[in-house]
């Protein structure tokens, strides 16, 4: 039962083959059985069973959505009323959220059952889940490797069958990179498509929530429930949400795929290149036309991101001051000591590094040289995408330079860790939607294919991903020991 997709489970629930309570119990048991993966920060057993009972009643009365009764994991960045919302940080280890994020409200309304809150890099800053206050989550494909980050707990939970699906957030690749490293499907929607209300902010002009699932059809179902205009988010976009399931089966004949030559250089690992080539050949067989595109400013994405994201982070994280909620140091000597020590004792090293970087980039005398320059570069990167997407329907490329790396391998070298986001970061700067889907294995570890689309073209991305999943079975592979 735990290997079934949302669509399959929804049928089983309606046919009375099992109840949501039985389904929920199965997952809760698995979560506790596999706690060594460290996927969950908080397991909400009681609340889950209550929600499952309510879902069963809804299913019986016929008043149910496709998500009613489906067990889901929430990334611990989404505020959940009455439930600890840690954001992977000691700063919020004692934080019981006083309200729900809009995404949480929407999924509750759809009748989804929350199993608990899943692990993540501290304040979503990291690409390996190793910066979490709660310790690293492990990749079920090889527990000595990282699941990626920052939505590492979400990816591990879905890959190891500790949830049917999960929410994630993506600021520089935090949905796509862990989805790739754990062999699942992840979608970062267009900026503004999913409400950021109650989603703890890292870099507000880049952050976007999205679904992490076993396949594209499930991603369509979950995105359908998450997306939509929200008055409570000032950057939410007031545009109708299309039916994401409607176009899944459209044939891909004549689809124009662009391959940026800047992605496929001699630097790309040869196994990775071969895997991607095989995936692109599948698309040729499905009737797609493939052509090269050029985006010369792509290589500036990492430098621009590491100005803009830390700058926004240093402003956003100034709210954690030890006064109104969160961690407070013992016996502060005065107000300045209260701020400085509370923040110093509760933030981890990577968060501090980015606050320092952002504070420096925004400080008097450096603002124009770094922040304004980075915003100008951002415009040029975005223009590159606009030009490419005026010639092709979607852009494809790698998600990561390599499959999952070892736990501890890159921790000592932050810059090297940053470079592992080279293929994902530019998409956040442009605000475009993009997906990662399983496309093969290298040495037994999953590899992702990235599909990038135009603004609000999530339905096409899902269609392109779904058609590939009809002719391949990479997305159906299960990690050994978790089948």
């Amino acid at each position, binding site marked *: 039962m735990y290997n079934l997709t949302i669509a399959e489970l929804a049928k089983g629930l309606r046919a009375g083959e099992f109840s949501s309570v039985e389904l929920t119990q199965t997952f809760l048991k698995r979560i506790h059985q596999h706690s060594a993966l460290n996927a969950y920060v908080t397991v909400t057993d009681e609340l889950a069973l209550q929600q499952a009972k309510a879902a069963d009643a809804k299913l019986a009365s016929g008043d149910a959505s496709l998500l009613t009764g489906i067990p889901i994991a929430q990334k611990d960045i989404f505020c959940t009323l009455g439930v600890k919302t840690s954001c992977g940080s000691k700063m919020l280890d004692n934080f019981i959220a006083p309200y729900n994020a809009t995404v949480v409200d929407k999924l509750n309304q759809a009748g989804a059952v929350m199993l608990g809150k899943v692990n993540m890099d501290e304040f979503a800053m990291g690409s390996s889940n190793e910066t979490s206050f709660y310790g690293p989550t492990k990749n079920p494909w090889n527990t000595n490797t990282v699941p990626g980050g920052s939505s590492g707990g979400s990816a591990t939970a879905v890959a190891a069958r500790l949830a049917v699906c999960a929410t994630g957030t993506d600021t520089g690749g935090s949905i796509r990179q862990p989805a790739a490293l754990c062999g699942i499907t992840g979608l970062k929607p267009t900026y503004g498509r999913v409400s950021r209300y109650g989603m703890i902010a890292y870099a507000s002009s880049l952050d976007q929530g999205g679904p992490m699932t076993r396949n594209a059809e499930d991603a369509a179902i979950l995105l359908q429930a998450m997306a939509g205009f929200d008055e409570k988010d000032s950057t939410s976009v007031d545009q109708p949400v299309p039916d994401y399931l409607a176009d899944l089966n459209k044939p891909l004949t004549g689809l124009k795929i662009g391959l940026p030559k800047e992605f496929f250089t001699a630097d790309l690992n040869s196994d990775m290149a071969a895997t991607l080539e095989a995936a692109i050949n599948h698309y040729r067989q499905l009737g797609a036309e493939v052509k090269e595109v050029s985006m010369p400013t792509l290589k500036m994405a990492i430098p621009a991101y590491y100005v803009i994201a830390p700058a926004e982070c240093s402003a956003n994280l100034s709210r954690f001051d030890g006064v109104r909620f969160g961690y407070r140091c013992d016996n502060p000597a005065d*107000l300045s000591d209260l701020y400085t020590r509370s923040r110093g004792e509760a933030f981890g090293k990577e968060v501090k590094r980015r606050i*320092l970087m952002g*504070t420096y980039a925004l400080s008097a005398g450096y603002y124009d040289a770094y922040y304004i320059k980075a915003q100008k570069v951002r415009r*040029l990167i975005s223009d590159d995408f606009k030009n490419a997407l005026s010639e092709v329907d979607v852009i494809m490329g790698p998600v990561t330079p390599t499959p999952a790396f070892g736990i501890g391998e890159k921790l000592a070298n932050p810059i090297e860790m940053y470079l592992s986001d080279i293929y994902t970061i530019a998409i956040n700067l442009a605000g475009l939607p993009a997906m990662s889907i399983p496309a093969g294995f290298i040495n037994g570890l999953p590899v992702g294919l990235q599909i990038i689309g135009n603004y609000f073209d999530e339905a096409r991305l899902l269609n392109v991903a779904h058609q590939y999943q009809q002719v391949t079975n990479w997305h159906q592979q299960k990690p050994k020991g978790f089948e």
Partner: protein
Amino acid sequence: MSLTANDVKKIAHLARLGIDDQDVESYANDLSGMLDLMTQMSELNTDNVSPMAHPLDQIQRLRPDVVTEHNQREHFQAIAPQVEDGLYLVPKVIE
């Protein structure tokens, strides 16, 4: 470009961020490495390019000036480190 230990201490003070003395040197190294990465941007000519603050170049939405929040002081203060009579307590500021 490189930052000194003193620069790091100054920035940490601006951010009201406590950092251990023994870590100052490693932050200085890491930040210098990040700055080297950023200076790559100077290769790119950005004259006459307007800075991009928002991916969709959206204008801030306005709403009618009416009260939409109701008072939830007790609810919010239930998670505060220290409160008294509805006030947040901090160390004495004025002697």
